């Protein structure tokens, strides 16, 4: 089974790739990683959602936490690649505009 997330560096920008299902079972592990990312205060982070297949409200909460944490330290955060069920959830919650999806 693939790791549900991966953090890499691309031209000094942090890239967080989230895969598979981000839900109440997988979000707690990602939330720990998010704490580490926020602590590192990156200037820029991209969240790649192109391989995310399913998300629930716990997964959305984890991404909101990341968004808030990065913005509160003056960093830039961008989301890309959301499609299918995850995009439908972001649109329903009107977060597609906040996340600029």
């Amino acid at each position, binding site marked *: *089974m693939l790791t549900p997330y991966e953090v890499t560096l691309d031209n000094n920008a942090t890239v967080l790739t989230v895969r*598979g*299902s981000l*839900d*109440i*079972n997988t979000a707690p592990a990602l939330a720990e990683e998010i704490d580490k990312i926020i602590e590192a205060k990156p200037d820029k982070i991209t969240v790649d959602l192109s391989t995310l*297949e*399913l998300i*629930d*409200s*716990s997964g*959305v*909460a984890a991404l*909101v*936490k990341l*968004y*808030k944490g990065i*913005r*509160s330290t003056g960093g830039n955060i961008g989301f890309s690649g959301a499609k*299918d*069920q995850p995009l*439908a*959830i972001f649109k*329903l*919650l*009107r*977060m597609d*505009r*906040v996340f600029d999806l």
Partner: protein
Amino acid sequence: MHEKVPERIWLTIPGALRYRAVAVRVVAEAARLVSGSARHDEHDLDEHDVRDPFDTAVVSAFMEIFNNVAIHAYHRDEAGRIEITITTRERELIIELADTGTPFDPRKVPELPNATELDIAALPEGGMGLHIAKSMLDDVSYQPGPPNKWRLAKRLPPTTQIARS
């Protein structure tokens, strides 16, 4: 054309979060029976493959209600069970969940704020589950028990063509 005879699927499953994926698989396949959507890759069963709007609505709502039962009715305790009955009709899917945990009071769920009208700090980090379920489905009802009963219903829009083999 004759109305399709309703068919039922019964699933009894521990009311614990680690079993949720099993129930989600069953619900996703039942949704496909109604929507007529095909798997993107029928050989890749690891892929969740929830793309069709009908399947998306059903699976999204079901995940939230399962979470609700496991967390609020059974308090993350693995002792309880959830009896799930899925009824597939020609253009409608009905999912009923029955649990014997603590009754839930939907009136205590706060309204979800509109993210576009808020500053960043006010973006919600919780309380979205029931809102998602209600918005995605045609009917969501709850009857406190015991047993507590959820009933979720989703109908295909009248214009939707069903690509059923």
